[in-house]
């Protein structure tokens, strides 16, 4: 681990203590801005910290541990896009606004957006899984050769929040009904827009994988701690080998997936599919741990007052965000098959 990354883990653990799960979004968001984490995706030239992308992953990992309710994942992706938006007038001003805490959100699953171009550009369609649109000023839309900011208070934009099982996140459907794109809000067109989309897609996988493995570590720690404390048959549950071995297997899965996370986070050559395969693995491990956490807690794990269900619901959501397990496994299989054809 680099010193920089170790310091980030440390700072995040202090700002978001492990015993305060699901910290309030309204208090978390200004704190995140204050910590300077919104600068993480930017190069030094663009006013950022010039750290590797493992730095952002470290923060996502720690925020995953505490089931953060703040929209850091879409925010950092949007800021990364702004950093690459050479066509955007006032690029520097936009970066300043976004890194200062003005939230620009985006969809965490692909949407069907129709682009009509005749002099001006009109957008129609629905963007699913847009986090915290109620808190955001704009949504970043990337569709068919265009990347643009859309103000959420526009006349032809409607936002509807859809209640999730996972109450640590808030996702909205954003519907564009023939929204006229302001040329001053265009980030990129053509190949440049495509490049941004591709980059963000990869970064999203990495961020989600980090969130998953932070959550999986925390859920496993919590479970092991419970087994050490809870007594039945005059001994701690942790003493039963049947339970020990299950925890050992979960730990092995988490540690191995985490090793791959940090390896890929610093691998400049990792493809989007490599990162998607990582996210598939990480989310599957998270699901495994969260599923077992409830079983190993017994009845208390089924109660709303206990935290087990929070991890399980977030794990299940993470399996879908950014593309499903099946989607990424299939793509990873195709990529490997093609690689061995050479």
């Amino acid at each position, binding site marked *: 681990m680099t010193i920089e990354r170790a310091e980030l883990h440390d700072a995040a653990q202090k700002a978001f203590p492990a015993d305060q799960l699901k910290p309030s979004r309204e208090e978390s968001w200004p704190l995140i801005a204050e910590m300077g984490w919104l600068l993480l995706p930017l190069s030094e030239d663009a006013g950022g910290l010039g750290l590797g992308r493992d730095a952002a992953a470290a923060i996502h990992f720690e925020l995953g541990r505490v089931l953060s309710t703040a929209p850091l994942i879409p925010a950092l992706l949007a800021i990364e896009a702004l950093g690459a938006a050479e066509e955007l007038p006032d690029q520097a001003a936009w970066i300043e606004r976004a890194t200062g805490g003005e939230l620009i959100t985006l969809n965490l699953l692909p949407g069907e957006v129709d682009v009509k171009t005749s002099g001006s550009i009109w957008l129609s369609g629905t963007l699913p899984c847009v986090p915290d649109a109620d808190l955001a000023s704009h949504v970043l839309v990337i569709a068919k050769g265009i990347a643009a900011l859309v103000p959420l208070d526009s006349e032809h934009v409607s936002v509807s929040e859809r209640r999730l099982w996972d109450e640590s996140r808030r996702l909205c459907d954003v519907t564009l009904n023939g929204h006229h794109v302001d040329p001053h809000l265009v980030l990129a067109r053509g190949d440049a827009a495509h490049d941004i989309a591709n980059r963000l897609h990869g970064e999203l996988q990495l961020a989600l994988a980090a969130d998953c493995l932070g959550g999986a570590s925390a859920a496993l720690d919590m479970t092991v701690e419970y087994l050490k404390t809870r007594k039945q048959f005059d001994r701690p549950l942790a003493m039963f080998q049947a339970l020990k071995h299950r925890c050992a297997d979960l730990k092995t899965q988490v540690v191995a997936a985490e090793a791959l996370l940090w390896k890929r986070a610093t691998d400049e050559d990792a493809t989007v599919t490599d990162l998607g395969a990582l996210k598939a693995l990480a989310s599957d491990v998270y699901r495994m741990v969260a599923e077992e956490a409830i079983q190993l807690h017994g009845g208390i794990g089924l109660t709303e007052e206990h935290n087990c269900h929070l991890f399980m619901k977030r794990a299940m959501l993470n399996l879908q965000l950014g593309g499903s397990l099946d989607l990424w496994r299939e793509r990873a299989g195709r990529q*490997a098959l093609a690689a061995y054809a050479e």
Partner: protein
Amino acid sequence: MSDDTHLEELRGQVRDWLKAHAPHGWREAYKSMSHAEFADAQRAWFRTLVEGGYAVPHWPAEWPGGGRSLAEQKVIYEEMARADTPRLLLSFVSTYHAASTFLECGTEEQKARYLPAILKGETWCQGFSEPNAGSDLAALKTRAERKGDVYVVNGQKVWSTMAQYADKCLLLARTNSEGPKQAGITFLLMDMKAKGVSVRPINQIQGDQEFCEMFLDDVEIPVSDRVGEENKGWSVAQATLSSERGLTLMELTYKMRGALSRVAEVIRRNGLEEDRGVLRDFGHLVARADSACAIADRFLQNRIDGSEGPYDASIVKNTYSRVLREYSLLGTRLGGIDEQYRAPIVYGDLTTGNWMADFMNSYAWTIAGGSEEVQRNIISERMLEMQREPKGWVL
């Protein structure tokens, strides 16, 4: 010269050397060999590596080919995995277990006598496990009684890798039955040609004969061939068993990653390239193999940094051995009925593309060298600090 430049130079040297010296087409050749011919081929490959200076990179610098840093050893094994060279099964116990026993616990005389002989091809096997002392090794019952200048040994050993070809044996025997079971064990060096030693290869389910059982009937071992003090053999055995931490697993893991090409071959051969279920299973296996490589790397880096945990090796072993099982199972499944017809095996290799044989051989890694269950105990008790069961339960 920076470390990185130095390592890249070494990588180039090893790669060039392997191009010129690695046995060509060994997989096909191994398939048509008798087991004894396989042992000869192993001896020849070991000799070549000794001559090239790559057989014992982990030995101290005063030995030819020794004195390599862990980072250098990693490069050497990565290149061997890349070149897909045969695994050194026959000489493994000699260069790792025997050598580290002598280096850490042997007398000067033992070092001078046995270490050079290893480089000349003297082969060691290990006489540790017994029919009733597997995971609970310290329960071993083979007796050694001191009579003047010799120990007289009686008992039975099992799972001794390649013992049918070994010249010498690292032997654990009981010299005291009183007190804690660990405190009555003595570490002896046994000549396999001594009177009273008989060896019987064990036929494994896939047709290999990698392991043997040994019967010891009044075998005499000179007292000078004892390592450490009498009844202090358990701590010597710890040195033996911790001799190879990381590098072997790293090499095997990378070999398995490379061998994913064999799964791709089966997919193509059976026209499954567009079967989405198959692609998903393959993609999942690739990610699992990648994570096994990542954890093997991380573990080795911990050792290089001096931040190794007492459970690191258990995590790496359980990850590798499980992924190896998944790998061989996927191949067996995708290969269809063809895999149910017997085909020649490649002795000593784990990822051969003879899927049923690979599947059966994968148990070598979930059972041998500390079973998966023993590793789970280590992970849960030492890493997760879950409470141990009270000692001294009597049934």
